[in-house]
């Protein structure tokens, strides 16, 4: 994938397929410790130990259209290729957590990319799901939470074009809602 934001989109789609009602995406760019940590946590159906032990194998998938499932193994390889590491854990009926740590300054580390497009793309096609997205860059913290947005919107759908535009701008410019 050309951007880390595309890996995040890919893994979040897994969460949606697992029936998650909340997806938490936390990105921590820590230049001082030379690492970027990406954590994607969901409250979907989770996996049992047997499935979990096979999930990083690209030739294992729970989908029935193909015999490969590459997203997690590609994400892990991307992280490890920059001197980082990868972690996944899951509990049935509780959810799954994926954490990928990248070497911030490593030459093979992809750019962060377009998180606004990733988050608004997820929302637009799955407007009933809540997304909590926190992005830390050094000492600055940006938080986007669909639950806060929904409170203000009342019965107006979060997928209305004007709202999606607002959200895209908010995330692109990393402006916290005040």
């Amino acid at each position, binding site marked *: 994938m050309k951007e880390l934001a595309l890996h995040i989109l890919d893994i979040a789609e897994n969460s949606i397929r697992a029936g998650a009602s909340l997806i938490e995406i936390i990105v921590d760019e820590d230049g001082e410790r030379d690492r970027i940590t990406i954590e994607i946590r969901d409250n979907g159906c989770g996996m049992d130990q047997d499935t979990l032990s096979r999930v990083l194998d690209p030739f294992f998938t729970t989908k029935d259209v193909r015999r490969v499932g590459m997203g997690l193994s590609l994400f892990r390889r991307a992280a490890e290729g920059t001197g980082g590491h990868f972690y996944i854990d899951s509990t049935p009926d509780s959810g799954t957590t994926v954490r990928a740590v990248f070497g911030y300054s490593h030459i093979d580390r992809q750019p962060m990319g377009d998180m606004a497009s990733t988050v608004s793309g997820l929302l637009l096609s799955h407007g009933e799901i809540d997304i909590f997205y926190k992005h830390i860059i050094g000492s600055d913290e940006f938080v986007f939470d669909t639950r806060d947005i929904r409170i203000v919107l009342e019965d107006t759908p979060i997928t*209305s074009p004007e709202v999606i535009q607002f959200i895209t701008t908010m995330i692109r410019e990393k*402006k916290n809602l005040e």
Partner: protein
Amino acid sequence: MAKMTIEDLRKIREQAKRSRNLREGEGNARITIHMGTCGIAAGAREVMDALLKAIDEHAVRSVLVTTSGCAGLCSHEPMATVEYADSPPVKYVNLDSNKIVRILLEHAVEGNVVKEFAFAIGSEKMS
């Protein structure tokens, strides 16, 4: 730069309400962009962006956009499936930002299949 306040969001809410009231009838077309790992790697997100932008620019109100996972034809990604009214679904392949806009305007809005980009209609493969 200006802050983004709750008040701004309230105004957006009012705008969205007014736009919804102007909409003529419910959606009669659905475009599904395939967002499996293969699709995302091939550029499905950019195709989705171009589609959403075109919907906004042309004020299209009758089309629903959704995503699904891998359709099993990874070498033809990015792909989209268009369902227009009661017609059989049409699978479009090898898409880019330009093609999806034509598909939106000609097929999803007007009902005319864009044959040059179509792979299959219903279960019939285009020859």
